[in-house]
């Protein structure tokens, strides 16, 4: 019998997923992120933080974007998990109260996060680096 232990593993490349811009996809992507993070040795508490970051990225892109789909990538490097999201936008008001709430949560959970508006696309990067703030 082989004893398998979780290890802190980086991935050789990003996990890239395109989903419809549908609120129901939030849970799907949280589950996907949980699986990737678990595979790479993140703890249960760390995975809970990653799930929050994924959810907030999707809130920003789905509720405030105008695209039919959202592109999400998970990038795992030694000691960090990055959530990247991209969708088409027409108007993207960073000071909208709902988006401010979202950014407040991202700022608390993530080590770094950025929201860029480029060529009618909103691009969000949310980086969680060990030690995670609350995990």
């Amino acid at each position: 019998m082989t004893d398998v232990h979780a290890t802190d593993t980086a991935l050789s490349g990003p996990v890239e997923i395109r989903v419809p811009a549908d609120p129901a996809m939030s849970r799907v992507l949280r589950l996907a992120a949980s699986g990737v993070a678990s595979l790479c040795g993140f703890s249960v508490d760390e995975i809970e933080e990653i799930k929050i970051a994924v959810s907030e990225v999707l809130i920003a892109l789905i509720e405030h974007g105008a695209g039919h789909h959202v592109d999400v990538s998970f990038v795992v490097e030694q000691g960090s998990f990055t959530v990247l999201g991209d969708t088409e936008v027409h108007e993207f008001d960073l000071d909208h109260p709902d988006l401010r709430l979202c950014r407040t949560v991202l700022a608390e959970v993530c080590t770094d996060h950025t929201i860029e508006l480029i060529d009618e696309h909103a691009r969000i990067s949310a980086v969680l680096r060990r030690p995670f703030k609350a995990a």
Partner: protein
Amino acid sequence: MTEFTSNESLTIDIADDGAVVVHGDIDMAGGPILEAVLRPREGTDAVLIDLADVSFIDSSGLRSLLDAARRAHARGTEVVLRSVGPEVSRLLEITGTSEQFRIDGRRD
């Protein structure tokens, strides 16, 4: 207890004491379902929401609770959050919104 409504990750019951009991995830998909349950039940009495079985909440779900609190305050009443777990507590703390609610018990 009567099951009121649900989606794949959220179920809402009405307890015998009238509390709206939420099970599962209050997220972008679940928030509107919760709001649809809460609105017709909003009257002159406080709105009691039991969160003992909530496993996940994000800022979108929190907005549903905050909107209910704003409507309650406008009617001269309040929203009571019962059995608040660490997930909800943390989000209330991060966003500085705990004072919008009366908290009736916390769970570990």
